[in-house]
């Protein structure tokens, strides 16, 4: 049997054009001649693969064609909801460049995030360059300061890996932030950048990974966030549905204010330690305080879900109190808010010294 002949046999064997008597003799030979059987089976498999691969390719081409034809149809006519979907799709496609990554859950800025979209990667590199320059500037200033005053603030020398927001629990240096901000990628050191532009090193005091709350303390002796005690108290019990809330945080170098309301009493997947908020939030705002209209702490921002859902989640104040419980003895926690009767602008003014950017460095 020559080399071409075996292909011809395989082809007719497969497509059913072979005479029954020939099929029987091929089957008989397959049983008795292992060399022939091996080659014949390889040929059969190859032809089968080529056939189904080709069939699938034609099917894909047709699908692409159908899809493209649907897309080019005017989005006004027809019966079912396609137009709305495509509208939405277009809007999302336009918006997607601005959103860090699909399914991003956490709200902190991750400088090492490989999955970030092109747009935010670029913006981060710019940001990164700016940070380097800023840090160099600050280090120079610090050296000059240290010569002048002999009490230079510590300036971190490595790169910022993550940033989030923190807020004071007590005036003498205890503060809260989201646990994932500091733990992600095993931090080396955490600094806060206060609104006097100085950096202060902080140590972890207590945390709860599940509720995503971390309590830290500024290391520096006799540290004070501001002249007076923290102007807000932590709410006991759950806030009401639809309660107006606001937050301030550091998604960028400047403080950003946003407001909204409690849209569900439980959080992500029904988590009773969280609220679901209708509140715009972005990366870098993890750990931001959520305050009610009277300026009391109702919770702390921890996460957002999918771009289209645009839900924001906050650990509630009960979860915060739980994490504070073991260390509460050392703390002087305010019982009342001093912000209740102030206008929103004045409230923010008062809050500014107690809310700051948290930066995590890794060597």
């Amino acid at each position: 049997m020559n080399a071409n002949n075996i292909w011809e046999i395989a082809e007719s064997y497969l497509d059913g054009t072979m005479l029954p008597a020939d099929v029987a003799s091929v089957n008989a030979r397959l049983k008795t001649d292992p060399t022939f059987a091996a080659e014949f089976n390889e040929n059969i498999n190859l032809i089968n693969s080529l056939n189904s691969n080709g069939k699938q390719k034609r099917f894909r081409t047709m699908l692409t064609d159908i899809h493209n034809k649907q897309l080019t149809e005017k989005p006004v006519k027809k019966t079912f909801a396609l137009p709305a979907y495509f509208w939405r799709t277009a809007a999302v496609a336009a918006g997607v460049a601005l959103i860090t990554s699909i399914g991003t859950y956490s709200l902190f800025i991750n400088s090492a995030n490989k999955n970030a979209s092109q747009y935010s990667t670029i913006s981060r590199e710019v940001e990164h360059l700016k940070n380097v320059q800023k840090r160099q500037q600050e280090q120079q200033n610090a050296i000059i300061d240290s010569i002048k005053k002999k009490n230079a603030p510590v300036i971190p020398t490595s790169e910022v890996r993550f940033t989030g927001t923190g807020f004071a629990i007590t005036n003498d240096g205890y503060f809260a932030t989201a646990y994932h901000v500091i733990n992600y990628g095993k931090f080396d050191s955490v600094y806060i950048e206060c609104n006097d532009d100085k950096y202060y090193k902080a140590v972890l005091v207590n945390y709860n990974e599940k509720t995503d709350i971390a309590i830290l303390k500024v290391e520096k002796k006799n540290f004070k966030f501001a002249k007076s005690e923290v102007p807000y108290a932590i709410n006991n019990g759950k806030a009401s549905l639809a309660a107006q809330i606001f937050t301030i945080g550091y998604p960028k170098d400047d403080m950003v204010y946003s407001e909204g309301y409690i849209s569900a009493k439980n959080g992500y997947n029904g988590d009773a330690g969280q609220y679901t908020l209708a509140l715009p939030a972005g990366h870098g705002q993890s750990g931001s305080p959520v305050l009610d209209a009277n300026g009391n702490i109702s919770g702390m921002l921890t996460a957002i879900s999918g771009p289209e859902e645009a839900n924001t989640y906050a650990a509630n104040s009960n979860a915060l109190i739980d994490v504070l419980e073991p260390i509460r003895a050392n703390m002087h926690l305010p019982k009342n808010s001093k912000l209740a009767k102030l206008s929103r602008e004045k409230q923010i003014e008062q809050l500014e010294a107690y809310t700051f950017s948290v930066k995590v460095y890794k060597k």
Partner: protein
Amino acid sequence: MYSPENNEQQVLTALARGDRAATEQIYKQQYPIINGWLIKNGGSADDSADLFQEAMVVLFGKVQEEEFRLTCSVGTYLFAISKHLWYKKLQRQHKEPTRLFDNTEGDDEGYGHPAHEDDVNIHHEREAHFELLDNALDQIGEPCRSLLQAYYHKDKSMQQIAVDFGYTNPENAKTQKYKCLARLRKLFYTMQSK
């Protein structure tokens, strides 16, 4: 007699042949649902088109089986397969699917069904196999590459190929095709054994 089940079976049989009308019908009914779900779960329009195509190819592969049987409706099947494909894709990208917001629990029947997972796994294996085959085809050189592509991918007849490639008759073209197949086999199985 007409019934939704009968109708669906007819559509699937037509789909197995690669019938355009049947494919279009399924597309129009199912694409908006999967697109809507994916957009809610953080996908883009391009992701939807890719995902839907992939799910349709899985279904297409499934209905090729001689005694194929869907344990659920086409819609449920495509939705379940889409979810599997999407979560697998996210897993490959080291994104955590459990953290995805998913508000479709109500119509979740079928998701997590091991049979669907099998279908997706088979699909991925098949895709890897086809990719290897395409690579081998790219390496065998001309005229073999074009000739085999014309026959197997573009579904051209040997008569047409003889004309296109300048062979005096279809028999000569056929002889050339068998030589090409022999070369492809050698290359393909060498690549596969690596």
